[in-house]
């Protein structure tokens, strides 16, 4: 498909991903409770994944259908986690 959007600055995205990875490595040494560290790491990982999907995979510039397809596995995984909670508790 002929894209009409201006290409995003891919090197900036690369830099963000690099910096976020370094931040992740720093986070594991923070003197916080385990839960807080895990929450931070999950947040950073999701943020990085979002950057890759939005810019490298052009999801930001695509029709909505593809975004919905991309979202389904996340919804189903959340569902899976929710269904497993009774097993853990």
């Amino acid at each position, binding site marked *: *498909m*002929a894209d009409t959007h201006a290409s995003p600055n891919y090197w900036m995205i*690369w830099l963000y*991903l*690099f910096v976020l990875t370094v931040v992740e490595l720093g986070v*594991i040494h923070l003197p916080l409770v385990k839960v807080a560290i895990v929450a931070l790491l*999950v947040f950073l990982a999701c943020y990085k994944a979002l950057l890759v999907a939005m810019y490298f995979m052009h999801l930001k510039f695509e029709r909505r259908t593809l975004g919905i397809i991309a979202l389904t596995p996340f919804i*189903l995984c959340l569902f899976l986690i929710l269904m497993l909670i009774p097993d853990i508790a």
Partner: protein
Amino acid sequence: MSEAAVMHARVELAEAPLTPESWGKLGMWVFLAGDAMSFGALLVGYGLLRHASTNWPLPFEIFGINLTAFMTFLLICSSVTMVKGLEAVKNNQRSVAKTYLLLTVLGGAGFLGLQAYEWTHLIDEGLKIYGNPWGSALFGTTFFMITGFHGMHVTGGVIYLSVMLAIVSKPTTQLGPGRTYNVVEIAGLYWHFVDLVWIMVFTFIYLV
């Protein structure tokens, strides 16, 4: 207009926005969504087993985080060379596209080499798929399953991208925003997905 014609027009209207190129893209996205569920199930399963275990070893005390951080960096770099290569295909710059695609392939191959090195090292230290000296046997099982499943994806990606490189390198292949661009873009989607999954695997298996 007859009823049939109205129906036909309606169907056309709903389907028209997808050009032939985007069907391929749609197909790749559907595949990736399914693949994401495989990885999702593996990672959720990992979380459950780890949570239920009382003697799960601390990953970052056993794995070399610096090496894996470098592997992450390699994949991120190969993702950016992929988009730059795609951009060059669109702009009809064959030699630039070839260079970037080659760098992407090399990034993937480098990742695999480092993973082989890491696995060998860990197996030598006693991490086996059925047990290890530090705690729960499932620690090794899940580690090899998940990183192995991802490594197979990288292997597939390296082969896939080598084919793309061969196509783009052929002087008779027409570049520009046409069919080749679309084919390379779809290959790129797969490659970025492999990078995206590694971001998750790196976080959950190595860092948490």
